[in-house]
């Protein structure tokens, strides 16, 4: 019997990866290609959409060739993508009007301040489920319409299309200028500030608020369901799933029940908790977002706590300070000391996201004395990621009333045992790592495979999930960290005060 495989494309911030999974959720083949990061001015971050499209085609073609020899058919394609990154292109030629504005780009800060000050600004939180922030795609689209010559006029004439990365890739995969399908999935649409988070449709009032012409927007579709046929690949396969990368990780971690939560520790850290069919209004600084939607079923929601800097702080210890030669060595350095030596690092490199949302905050090292060594700094840097996880978990529990039974983790930093034990202790909750660390790609594959019947239902996916490691909280340590937590909170307040104008 031939096996049925699913192809996942993970279009991430630094690279594009194509991975083929088998029915047990195991990786069969993987190809990856990095793309260039453009920093034209301080705070600006751009990607070339054509380069990303080329990398997608190339890596997908490579893995399809890799598995062509195996006894199996690739029957569907799922896409997971860096969220909120914004592309605008010409529908006739397929050429972008400029580079994509990446989710880390902070150029819309002024525009956001201006928009937030408007008397009708409350409509955004009310309809979109999240406050106006430069983090989301809507303000970036508005910036392009305002700054690219003739963009607004051409958009209104129906010549330009808008999309987040999955929309751009699906349009190209399905034919581009020759009949490309212009669609987005509901999780990505929920990150634009342009969608009504309850009806899951573009909202006329929000479009008016941001002054965005409806004609350039893609059609909103469920995350799990056939979106089109990827005729650009050989053989052509149905595109049957799409999710923003963090929602894909939630799906890959099979967090299908209300209360289930996962945290991905990468460049930043992203904690999502499933809240079921109920949209929870956040008052404590988490985001109400769409978790996923199966075709024909109601939308499932999640609360999200996004932290901009996690692994990026370790990279800074490596590249900015030269304290370590490789990222994993941070654990070795941190283990040269027994505690943080009274030192706290708040990595607010470009402000703080959840649960504080203070764009003006700037990083600081608090508690420096002559006693503090590079070992203490390394430990404080790792602890910062743990403390920030506690910040977002507390905010979420206040909002949802759902307490965490366990936190499922994934991402590169989960091989750091010191950090994982710290997270377990600081949350006083077990931390569990699954066997397949590639949860973003796996989630995209699951979505697509579910749509075409490779897996019968979500229960079949849950049977694929296995625990590969667990960190259990140590009660005495958990109590000590709870007592220490106010010091961290104070350091955070200082970082906000420092950045105040």
């Amino acid at each position: 019997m031939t096996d049925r495989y699913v192809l996942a494309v993970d279009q991430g911030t630094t690279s594009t990866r194509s991975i083929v999974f088998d029915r047990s959720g195991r990786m069969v083949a993987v190809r990856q290609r990095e793309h260039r990061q453009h920093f034209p001015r301080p705070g600006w971050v751009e990607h070339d959409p054509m380069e990303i499209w080329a990398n997608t085609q190339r890596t997908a073609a490579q893995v399809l060739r890799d598995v062509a020899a195996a006894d199996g058919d690739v029957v569907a394609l799922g896409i997971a993508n860096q969220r909120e990154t914004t592309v605008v292109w010409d529908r006739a030629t397929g050429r972008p009007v400029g580079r994509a504005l990446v989710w880390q780009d902070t150029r819309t800060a002024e525009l956001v301040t201006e928009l937030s000050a408007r008397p009708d600004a409350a409509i955004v939180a009310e309809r979109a489920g999240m406050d106006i922030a430069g983090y989301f795609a809507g303000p970036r689209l508005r910036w392009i319409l305002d700054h690219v010559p003739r963009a607004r006029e051409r958009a209104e004439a129906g010549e330009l299309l808008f999309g987040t990365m999955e929309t751009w890739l699906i349009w190209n995969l399905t034919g581009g200028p020759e009949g490309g399908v212009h669609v987005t999935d509901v999780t990505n649409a929920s990150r634009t500030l342009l969608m009504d988070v309850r009806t899951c449709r573009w909202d006329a009032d929000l479009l008016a608020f941001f002054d965005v012409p409806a004609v350039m927007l893609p059609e909103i579709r469920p995350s799990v369901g056939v979106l089109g046929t990827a005729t650009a690949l050989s053989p052509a396969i149905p595109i049957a799933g799409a999710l923003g990368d963090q929602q894909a990780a939630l799906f890959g971690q099979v967090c299908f029940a209300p209360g289930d939560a996962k945290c991905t520790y990468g460049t930043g850290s992203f904690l999502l908790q499933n809240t079921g069919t109920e949209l929870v209004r956040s008052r404590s600084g988490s985001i109400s977002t769409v978790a996923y939607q199966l075709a024909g079923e109601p939308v499932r929601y999640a609360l999200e706590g996004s932290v901009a800097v996690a692994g990026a702080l370790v990279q800074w210890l490596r590249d900015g300070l030269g304290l370590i030669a490789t990222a994993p060595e941070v654990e070795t350095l941190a283990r040269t000391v027994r505690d943080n030596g009274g030192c706290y690092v708040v990595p607010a490199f470009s402000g703080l996201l959840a649960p504080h949302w203070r764009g003006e905050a700037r990083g600081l090292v608090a508690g420096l004395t002559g006693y503090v060594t590079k070992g203490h700094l390394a430990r404080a840097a790792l602890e910062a990621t743990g403390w920030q996880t506690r910040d977002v978990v507390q905010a979420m529990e206040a909002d949802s009333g759902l307490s965490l039974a366990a936190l499922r983790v994934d991402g590169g930093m989960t091989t750091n045992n010191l950090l994982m034990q710290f997270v377990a202790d600081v949350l006083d909750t077990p931390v569990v790592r699954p066997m397949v660390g590639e949860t973003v790609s796996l989630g995209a594959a699951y979505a697509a495979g579910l749509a075409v019947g490779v897996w019968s239902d979500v229960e079949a996916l849950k049977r694929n999930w296995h625990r590969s490691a667990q960190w259990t909280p140590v009660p005495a340590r958990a109590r000590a960290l709870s007592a220490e937590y106010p010091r961290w909170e104070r350091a955070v307040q200082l970082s906000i005060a420092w950045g105040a104008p």
Partner: protein
Amino acid sequence: MPGTVQSIERAAAILQVVAGSGGTLGVTEIAGAVGLAKTTTHSLLRTLLAVGFVDQDRSTGRYSLGAGLLRLGAGHLDVNELRARASNWADALASRSGQAVRLATLAGDHVDVVHHVFRPDDSVQVLDVGTRLPAATTALGKVLLASAAGRHGGGTGVGDVAVDRVELAEVRARGWATGRVGPDLGVSGLAAPVRGSTGLVVAALGISGPTSVVLDGRGAPRPALLTMVLDAAQAVSRELGHSG
């Protein structure tokens, strides 16, 4: 600074730029960054390429640090680095074999568990990273002792560990070992060496599970499991830059 060799200074500057860029720069950008003419930069890069100190991506023309340079500094391998590099392969081994996986390094008469992946049956298991296992009786330990004995010329001393020299010679020759895991004879291990970029054994990777599952009636490893362990150990070795 009198007496310095200009071309070495220039090459060093280029290497620093290439190292800092993470492989994103072409010759024009590198020339700009070090303030040299493009032709000069190009010929220096050709030489660095020839000795393996830089690599060039054929499709984009961009430069990254070469394997030859990385090997120079690879005398010491950090255990946390080792775990990070081995993690995906260890997961895959646990998933395919259905058994618990451990990665270990030698420390005198015992081995340190550097990485541990649970047996994928969702039963209650405790992470034992950082714990010590006896070297002489475990599969992981025998693999590491065998290579250490080989390195010291065999025969006389592997520390003070009482080991079966004949068995170690066999382990070294065939490239795997079986052994106990703890006092429980019902559990057996099967392990193979992981080699670093210099070809030296830097760690042992192995599985452990019920003896009747891991071994056949005569105490030999089940062929399918042995292949999985050898493949995984080789994959981690490749990940560490071992080409053999």
